[in-house]
Structure formats: C-alpha cells, structure tokens
C-alpha cells in the first residue's frame, strides 16, 4: 500500500487537521466528535445544510463547507458513514434557528446514522429535514437493491441547495430545490484501477492490466460488470448512453455536465473525457450550458471517472451561478 499517510488509524484526523490549518479563514474543525463547520456558523436566520459520509471522497464533503454551500460536514472513518454523535453535534453547532437540512447519500449506513441523529436533534427541538441523494444509474432502483447510490449529484445538490439557503429560502423550499436537483440528475462511473482502504491494506478488488470496471461506486465497491479496456470515446459512450437514456435527457435540454475524477486520474484525462461527452451531446442536440471538470467526489486513489448530468432550468442555473466560497469550489466572491 503506497500512500502519504502516517497510519490508517490517524489519517482522517491528520487530514482534518491539515484542512483546519489550510482553511482557517473558511472553516472550523472540531474533534471528538469530528465535524467541520463554516467559520461564521451558526448563521442566524439561515437554513443550515449538514452533510457527511465516509472519508476518502475528498474534497467531498469538508471541502464544500463555506459560504453558499454546506454549513457543516461530518467525516466518518474511510468509507464508513459518520456516527450519530458527529451529525448531532454538527447539527446543533450550525443551527440558525430556522431548521437544518441533512443531505444524505443513499447508503444503508448513512441513512441509519443520519436517521438516529435526526431523531435526537428533533428531541432537542431542532427542526430537521432530510434529502436522500440517489443518482447512480449503475444500480437498479428495485425491490432487489437498497436503491440507487448517491454519487455525483451530491456535489450539485450541496452547491445549489447551499445557494438556496444563502438566498434566505425557508427549509421546505431548500428541501424542494435539493430534491429537484437530485430528481433531475443521473450519474455513472467507471474504474481503471481499484483503491486500497488503508485499514485493509490491499486493493478492494483486483483488475487485470487490460480490464476496467463499469458501474463502480465511490467506496471501491466492485461495479456491475468488468470489460476489456477501451478508448475514452468508447468508455464515455457507454457511461453517457446509460445516463442520458435513464432520465431521459432529450434533444433541446439544457444540461450541466460534471466530469469527475475518482482520485488517481489526472486532469488531462478528464478534459479528454469531457471532450468526448461534448461530441455525444452535440449529436443528440443536448446543450451543455454549465460544466464542472475535476476530482470532486473521489474513492481514495482509484483511477477512473464518473459522468453526472443535471437537467437545468432558470432556477437551478441561477442558483448554480450564485457565489460560493469553499476550499474546493470558489466563484463569484
């Protein structure tokens, strides 16, 4: 296992301490329980957004804490959802008196831990609403699964929902907008390599030198199928096809395209992926009016990419364009 860490036991806290030191102007980091809040929290009279999940997806979620996005993030152990204590403490720390929205990726562990925290927070008289993110088309949403995973849409929901809260919208409105974004977003990912969970010490799955894994999640879970390595054009064709057909996205739709790197893939390759996506959308008459290209929701050092498409309208576009000031996303300020 080749990583720049001190030990599997200390890595999450070492990284949080590094973030705290690097971004003291934007965030405050608390330990025992561990959570990250924006420097000016609680913002009185503003709906607060709290998210969280296992670590290993950086910059998600801590890198998105700040003005115009999240009020707090709760980082669990690597790939392990945070515990209720973290979520409760973060919720109380950012509560501005007009309600707190929990943004939860659809994984059994995340759901249960946020649920328990929400019950406890409500018992303390805090108004709580939750949105479940489930945009991964690689998983069938059926009786035979725990439902679709929350992946790339999480970043878009946190940005757009954060802008809605910053604009002073009430809890129900912010929740509506987050659900609207989730409902209008679809994603799919692939891996060229597995990743190594530090405490496990070896790759979660083995991929041959000429193999790739299609439909992977962000926890190094194996995907839906293994295929021979293909060109960027073919890979993007596969991912984009599945994503476009699912919503479905139609000719004339205005779309935000998010090309994400899984952690070990360099930017030059992500632009190649974006270029292939642009070609496909051109032929299908889909208008890419906004884009985000970079590694924003990762699986440790996994090499690979995921495509996320969001159908935009004026409301969502304006909220996307609104100022944001976080460690990982900054514009308009």
């Amino acid at each position, binding site marked *: 296992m080749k990583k720049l860490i001190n030990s599997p036991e200390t890595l999450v806290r070492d990284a949080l301490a590094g973030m705290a030191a690097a971004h003291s102007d934007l965030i405050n980091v608390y330990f025992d329980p561990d959570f990250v809040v924006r420097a000016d929290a609680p913002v009185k009279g503003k709906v607060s957004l709290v998210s969280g999940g296992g670590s290993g997806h950086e910059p998600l979620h801590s890198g998105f804490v700040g003005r115009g996005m999240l009020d707090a993030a709760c980082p669990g152990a*690597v790939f392990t959802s945070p515990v209720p204590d973290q979520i409760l403490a973060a919720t109380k720390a950012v509560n501005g008196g007009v309600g707190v929205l929990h943004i939860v990726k659809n994984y059994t562990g995340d759901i*249960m831990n946020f649920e*328990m925290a929400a019950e406890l927070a409500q018992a303390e008289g805090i108004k709580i609403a939750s949105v479940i993110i489930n945009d991964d088309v690689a998983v069938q949403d059926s009786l035979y699964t*725990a439902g679709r995973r929350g992946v790339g849409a999480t970043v878009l929901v946190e940005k757009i929902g954060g802008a809605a809260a910053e604009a002073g919208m009430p809890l129900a409105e912010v929740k509506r907008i987050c659900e609207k974004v989730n409902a209008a977003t679809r994603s799919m990912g692939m891996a060229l390599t597995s990743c190594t*969970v530090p*405490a496990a010490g070896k790759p979660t799955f083995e991929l041959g030198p000429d193999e790739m894994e299609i439909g992977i999640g962000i926890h190094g879970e194996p995907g*839906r199928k293994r295929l021979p390595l293909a060109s960027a054009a073919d890979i993007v064709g596969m991912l984009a096809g599945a994503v476009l057909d699912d919503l479905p996205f139609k000719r004339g739709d205005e779309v935000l395209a998010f090309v994400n790197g899984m952690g070990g893939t360099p930017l030059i390759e992500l632009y190649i992926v974006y270029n292939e996506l642009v070609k496909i959308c051109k032929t299908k008459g889909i208008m890419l009016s906004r884009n985000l290209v970079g590694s924003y929701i990762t699986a440790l050092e996994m090499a690979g990419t995921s495509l996320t498409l969001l159908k935009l309208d004026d409301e969502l576009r304006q909220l996307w364009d609104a100022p944001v000031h976080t460690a990982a996303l900054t514009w308009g300020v």
Partner: protein
Amino acid sequence: MRITAEHVIHFLDTLAARMKEQRAYLTELDSPIGDADHGTNLDRGFSAVVVKLPELAGKDIGTILKMTGMTLVSNVGGSSGPLYGTAFLRAGMLFSDRYELADDDLQTALEAALAGIMMRGKAQRGEKTMIDTLAPAIDALKSARAAGADLVTAVREATIAAEQGMQATIPMLATKGRASYVGERSIGHQDPGATSAYLIIVVLREGLEQIASKAS
C-alpha cells in the same frame, strides 16, 4: 443457571477480543461485495466497549448492555453500528436493575435484539444479512428449549443453526445493504455481517459453557 453481570462483562470482553482477532477476515469478506471495512468497524466499536467495561463493573445488566449499544452506535458508524448498537440497546431495555439473568432471559434478549435490527434496517430473512444468522439461531434455541433441553445444549443447537444460516448467505442474492449494488455478483460470497453475527453466537455459547462447567 446463574448468569451474572460479571458474566456479561466477561462475555463482552471476550467478544471484543474475537472481533479484533477476526478483523482482517471480516474485512476480507466485505471486499468482494462491500467496501472492505466491516472488520475494522466492529473492532473499532468493540474496542471502545472494552474501554468502558471497567466503569460498568458493579452496574446492572440493563445498564451494561445499553452502554454497550450506545458505545457501538457512537463508534462504529456504517451499517453495522446502528444495527448492532440497536440490538444491544433493545436487549438492555429488558434488564433494568437486573444483576442476574435466568435461563429464559437469553431467548427474550436475542428476540429483542433481532427485532431492533429488523426495525432499524427494514430487512427480512433471505436478504443476505446478519439476520440470516440470527433468526435461525433464535428459532433453534427456542425449539430446543421447548423440547426441554438445558440452556447450554440449546445454545449449542443455536450455534449450529447460526453457522448454517451464515453459510446459507453464500448462494443468496443480496437485496439489502451495499452488497445489493453488485447485483448477481453478490451470489457466491458469504455475507460479512452474517459472519460477525455468527461470531457473537459462538462467543455466547463459549461463555455459557464456561459458566456451566464452573457451576458443575
């Protein structure tokens, strides 16, 4: 057969040691159909429980089990944290101010624990989870007891059923939890949670055997 608070604390201590010992194995099982953290999660949780045990000495069994549940909830995370945490919490609620348990208490405790897991996780038998170990174990315990077997014999029956239940998850298609994401590919792999649940039953059996042997 007398099961005292000290016995319960000793059981938790042994269980924590077993989870640490089996940590790599459980994480290994969590790799092909999960995210390679089940062993790490449980070891982290039960290690935290061990730290708490000294201050629990002399406390009633209800308090001990509830504290265990809360400690698991507060330290494990993931799916198994809330699930096992709720299980111990529910069992603990039955024994407020009780310093000793009678033979029949074990069965009701396990039933309460399973009910808590099913409430929290909304899963049924046959979905390739820890439930597939615990449910048949409890059935076996109950029928053995109904047939007049003593507690140790009954728990031995339960352990056999637990092992069979655990192995039965191998051919199952996962329809709950992370394993369900890999769909058909989940078939052929033993469920990590079903395995950790089996370890719990085994440690339980060992504990009761010790108590019995000391008693006789």
